[in-house]
């Protein structure tokens, strides 16, 4: 058991089973569908309200994603803690300035380039999640498990745009 917890990498089937149980627990015990992207909107709303209150006076922040420290924010915080515990247990934890070997092979050593793409990609990703009503966790899995059609439209769309983008970025190295 301890050996398993210390293992660097689990089979995706085992890790997926654990996450599936998390969904069951969370839905059964509290009626909460786990998600990650909503938390950024809750925090973003808080910041916007502090900087310029007019920004959050609209339907979206009033009804869809109210600003505040919600359960989603706690869950996001937990994701960091859980991943940290996992990495520490397996001795996998290290600080690094991001470009990992695969990125370096294709796009070179520049750290700034990596950070810029990660930052811009993050904005695009979160914007998309806001429009779709969730991300891979909240919509694709959280909706998919109830066979909500939106979840499967989202998963398909994610690959329809993700594959050409990867193709464009990697070109001949695809």
């Amino acid at each position, binding site marked *: 058991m301890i050996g398993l917890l210390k*293992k660097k990498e*689990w089979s*995706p089937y085992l*890790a*997926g*089973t*654990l*996450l*599936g*149980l*998390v*969904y*069951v627990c969370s*839905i*059964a015990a509290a*009626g*909460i569908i*786990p998600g990650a992207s909503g938390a950024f909107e809750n925090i973003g709303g808080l910041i916007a309200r502090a900087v310029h209150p007019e920004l959050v006076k609209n339907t979206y922040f009033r009804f869809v994603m109210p600003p505040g*420290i919600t*359960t989603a924010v706690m*869950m996001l*915080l*937990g*994701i960091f*803690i*859980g*991943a940290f*515990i996992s990495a520490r247990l397996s001795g996998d934890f290290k600080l690094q300035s991001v470009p*990992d*070997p*695969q*990125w370096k092979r294709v796009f070179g050593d520049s750290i700034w380039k990596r950070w810029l793409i*990660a930052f811009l*990609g*993050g904005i*695009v*990703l979160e914007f*998309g999640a*806001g429009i*779709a*009503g969730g*991300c*891979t*966790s909240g*919509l694709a*899995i959280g909706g*998919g498990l109830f*066979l*909500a059609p*939106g*979840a499967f*439209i*989202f998963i398909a769309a*994610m*690959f329809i*745009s*993700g*594959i050409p983008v*990867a193709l464009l970025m*990697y070109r001949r190295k695809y």
Partner: protein
Amino acid sequence: MSEMIFSLVMGSAFGFALQKAGLSKYNKIVNVFRFTDLAVLKFMMTTLAVSMVGVFALKSAGIIALPAIPATYVVGNLMGGLIFGIGMAAAGF
């Protein structure tokens, strides 16, 4: 309050599973779009299957009621998904 702590614990288990599956790494995320490593899909589909069986078993046994199910609005899900995919493939997160 207890709901907050519960979410924190659930989130920790969530993060633990993600890290153990290696999904905190750039190459795992981007390679699913290159079809060289399908760990993301294996992970996602396993989660779907397990949670589906678990939730509906509990519902059929009359132990739980279903929460509000994420809404389907075709244009939003589709456009959002397309934009999301661009960010995911580019950033690799």
